[in-house]
């Protein structure tokens, strides 16, 4: 715990550098990565991340030292080449995009490994630390490195800020962007350059293999909480920053631990929490909502059947045996009793020993369902010109969904008709 306070107080200037650096790296990667995510190009980001490795080696061979600018320049070149090659192979041969991505990714990485091992055996003393690019080491960020990478990160943020509208438009509706005369090619070009730049600085923190995670996982997580693009970007950058800060903390307390994988584990955990627990889009929220709708539909269907039985006898309040209901529409007996008990609790049904009858509220609710069903059938035949024997299925669905406002509009549009296409009487609440 002490270590945490010491870390969070930022009293050690070294911690300040590392923490600030990691947060900048992960947050800016998350922001640029959100566009990769929205463009459904997540795996292209992965390919770029692997493809910068030979470029970094190339930059080192050219400069002879680990000059950050040389490394960035080299990485930029091979990163770009990989994007062009993936597109070229996909467009010009019969190879599909996923194969092209996998091919370029693994072959470029292989070339990178070959170059890296050759450099390591070459005896140049300044090469040590080059392999940090493989797994990342946020803790090694100091002084001049940090300044270079901060400048790149800020450039990224500024460009994204300026071109935000254009990038978003491109992600959602490329054809529209083209039709209003935006220079689509140039915008795409600058977005790809930004991704390459983000990768080049991001692999400092997490390494080549896991770079894809800090690009897309924050965006994937943020997407589950909101439908607003600005909120999504804000959330993605916050998630990224949290993971970056945790990574810096871990490399501070346990220097032997690889930082990159921990950053990825933190951001993945945030993502899994989002996938499951985000209120409207998460797995659990969706499941609960579906279960609730299923219950409503079952309840209303059973009420409707008792009502229809009542129509046959011209008395809606005769108590019924479960067998009578099952004869009209099949249910497992246990399931039906469960539904009936629920309806009893809600006051729609009254139970006398093994007989179940509608209450006044139950009759009204059932009547409304039947009315909507029949109105909708009529609407489909008169206004949509669908044959009367094809309208039942659709009405069966809409009867549970129609809002009171739409119900009223429908009544007025059809002029309060008396019967549906099958000559069944349409029941209104007032008579």
């Amino acid at each position, binding site marked *: 715990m002490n270590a945490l306070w010491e870390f969070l107080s930022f009293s050690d200037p070294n911690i300040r550098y590392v923490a600030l650096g990691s947060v900048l790296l992960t947050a800016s990667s998350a922001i640029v990565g959100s566009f990769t*995510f929205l463009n*459904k*190009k*997540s*795996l292209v*980001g*992965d390919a770029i991340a*692997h493809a910068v490795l030979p470029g970094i080696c190339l930059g080192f061979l050219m400069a002879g030292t680990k000059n950050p600018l040389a490394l960035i320049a080299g990485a930029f070149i091979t990163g770009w080449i990989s994007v062009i090659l993936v597109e070229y*192979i996909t467009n*010009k*041969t*019969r*190879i*599909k995009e*996923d*194969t092209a*991505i*996998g*091919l370029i*990714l*693994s*072959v*470029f*990485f*292989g*070339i*990178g*490994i*070959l*170059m*890296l*091992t*050759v450099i390591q*055996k070459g005896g140049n003393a300044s090469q040590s630390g080059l392999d940090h690019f*493989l*797994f990342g080491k946020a803790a090694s960020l100091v002084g001049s490195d940090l300044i270079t990478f901060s400048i790149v990160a800020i450039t990224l943020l500024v460009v994204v800020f300026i071109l935000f509208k254009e990038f978003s438009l491109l992600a959602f509706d490329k054809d529209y962007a083209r039709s209003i005369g935006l220079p689509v090619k140039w915008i795409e070009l600058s977005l790809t350059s930004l991704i390459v730049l983000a990768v080049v600085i991001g692999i400092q923190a997490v390494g080549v*293999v*896991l770079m*894809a*995670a800090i690009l*897309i*996982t924050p*965006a*994937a997580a943020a997407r*589950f909480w909101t439908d607003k693009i600005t909120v999504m970007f804000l959330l993605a950058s916050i998630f990224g920053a949290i993971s970056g800060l945790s990574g810096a903390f871990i490399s501070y307390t346990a220097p*032997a*631990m*690889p930082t*990159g*994988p*921990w950053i*990825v*584990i933190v951001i*993945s955990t945030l*993502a899994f929490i989002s*996938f499951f627990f985000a209120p409207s*889009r*998460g*797995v659990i929220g*969706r499941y609960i909502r579906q279960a609730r709708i299923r219950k409503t539909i079952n309840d209303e269907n059973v009420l409707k059947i008792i009502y229809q039985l009542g129509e046959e006898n011209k008395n809606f309040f005769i108590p019924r045996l479960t067998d009578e209901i099952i004869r009209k529409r099949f249910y497992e007996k246990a399931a039906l009793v469960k539904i009936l008990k629920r309806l009893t609790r809600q006051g729609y049904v009254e139970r006398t020993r093994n007989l179940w009858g509608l209450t006044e509220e139950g009759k009204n609710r059932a009547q409304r369902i039947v009315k909507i069903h029949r109105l909708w059938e009529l609407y489909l035949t008169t206004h949509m010109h669908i044959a009367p024997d094809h309208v039942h299925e659709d009405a069966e669905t809409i009867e549970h969904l129609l809002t009171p406002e739409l119900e009223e509009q429908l009544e007025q549009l059809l002029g309060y008709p008396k019967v549906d296409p099958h000559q069944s009487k349409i029941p209104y609440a007032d008579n």
Partner: protein
Amino acid sequence: MNDLYIILTASLVSASCALLGCFLILRRMAMVGDAISHAVLPGIVIAFLLSGSRDSVTMLIGAGIIGMFTTFLIEFFHKKARLQTDASIGVTFTWLFAIGVVLISLFAGKVDLDQDCVLYGEIAYVPLDVIITQGGINIGPKALYVSGIILIVNLLFVSLAYRKLFLTTFDPYFATAIGISTTVWHYALMGAVSMTTVASFESVGAILVVALLIAPAATAYLLTDNFKTMLALACLMGVLSSITGYYLAVWLDGSIAGAIATMSGVHFALAMLLSPSHGMIYKKLKTHIH
């Protein structure tokens, strides 16, 4: 002799990968293969901790399970959480790979694996780990036997289930209609990919195995329109990359696995340019003549 052992092991591994790679690229699942090859890492480490050795049956089974779990997770996020496929793949494999690397550092003393080995294997050390019979006779490196057995298993799998794999790849609807379960064969294939990845792990590492899965198959795909020919050509390409890659690595004094991946890329580039049926040059000439 050592040269021969290394080249033979590499060739057996690449032939196994190439066979399965053909199915992967035609099913548009190349990236799922990539994901599995990363995701088996935690499985390898855990099996290592449990069994204490690297070449146990436990490990192959564990890997098979983890591979299918990965496939399941990707599909779960896609179908139940409605996450787009590419992101679902990316999130899943980076997470599992990260766990694997952390496990390696946590148990650094107990697990005879290091991070470099994860990335590009240790095929150069293959000749050092030999099997010696009770009579004291050296019968060759262990990795050679492991990769040989895996190749035989894969050959048996592909030839015995050929019709089913073929139909579920090219016409899944027809396959379903005549009662072949696409799900079963989907998971069987992914299980085979996972086991092959783990068996290849020692030689080429978890990442470069992707090159062996995809590149030879993609090269073969540009050279023929017949699926059986494609399978044979892919194996041939894998072997060719292994041989040329080995000598490239010796010449440059670098990673053998890296060099093999490099050569498989070179072969793909050559096929893309020179293929008599689908090559760039041939296409140019054809449009020129017309």
